[in-house]
């Protein structure tokens, strides 16, 4: 067993003094920045909800919890496959990583299709972002989040391309981890968005 493998093992068990930052450090500045932005959104939503509680509750009841829950599981599954893909990449199993990333991309694509279906349902029922304060939040939050999903999908697409084309050369693991971290952020944000928008009343 060579030294880099040992290093990897002790790093995984957290025993090494040199802990590992997944991806570029700058990505984490962005991740926490995004978390703060969404925290402010959530707080504003809760404050406005208090003022118009019954309006919010009534509008919220038109949302499909099933769509929301399925979308949550889709992103969670995407995260699983991205995490597995990162491990496969580290181990040199590039072809496996390519397939794993492809599955994650499929999860993202289905999420986006679901989103389009949801929005279409709303709009054909005459519900727009301007309809009331709740729907304004709903469209803006989920729309802003959907943009994140699209970016995440592009990231994983690039990651898949890298491992597919690597051949015998080593891939840029830092980039792979950066993309993976962004993906998990997208998952993470929806994990909060779903109960806040769809369930809590």
């Amino acid at each position, binding site marked *: 067993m060579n030294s880099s493998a040992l290093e990897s093992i002790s790093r995984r068990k957290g025993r090494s003094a040199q802990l590992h*930052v997944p991806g570029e450090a700058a990505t984490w500045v962005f991740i926490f920045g995004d978390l703060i932005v969404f925290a402010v959104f959530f707080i504003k939503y809760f404050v406005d909800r208090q003022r118009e509680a019954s309006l919010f509750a009534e509008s919220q009841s038109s949302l499909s919890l099933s769509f929301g829950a399925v979308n949550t599981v889709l992103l969670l599954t995407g995260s699983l496959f991205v995490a597995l893909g990162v491990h496969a990449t580290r181990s040199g199993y590039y072809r496996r990583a390519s397939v794993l990333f492809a599955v994650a991309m499929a999860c993202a694509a289905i999420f986006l299709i679901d989103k389009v279906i949801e929005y279409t349902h709303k709009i054909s029922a005459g519900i727009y972002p301007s309809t009331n304060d709740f729907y304004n939040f709903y469209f803006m939050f989920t729309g802003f989040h959907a943009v994140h999903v699209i970016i995440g999908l592009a990231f994983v697409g690039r990651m898949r391309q890298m491992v597919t084309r690597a051949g015998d050369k080593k891939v840029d693991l830092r980039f792979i981890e950066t993309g993976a971290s962004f993906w998990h952020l997208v998952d993470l944000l929806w994990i909060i968005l779903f109960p*806040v928008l769809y369930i809590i009343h």
Partner: protein
Amino acid sequence: MVDRDARDAVRAPASLYWVWALLTALTLLSWMVGVGEGGVLDLRVATAVVLGVAFLKVDLVGRHFMELRTAPRLLRILLDAWVIGVFVILMGIYLS
């Protein structure tokens, strides 16, 4: 190419699958509370549970999927601070 021993040594941890299963189960639980329209639980308790579970899920994603367990402690601390801080603030507003 990486040699066989090194490859086997850096296999994906089985915990990833368990964490995914737990996250999915927690999602199903939240959905059930959501469609149950309160049911047995007092509304405020149901909200605390659903929101608390959501932040717990964020923590799990951070620790296991984002590999924060093996990252510098600062990252874990910052995420935990966000999780706890936002949960407390939101519940505070909700209960006010």
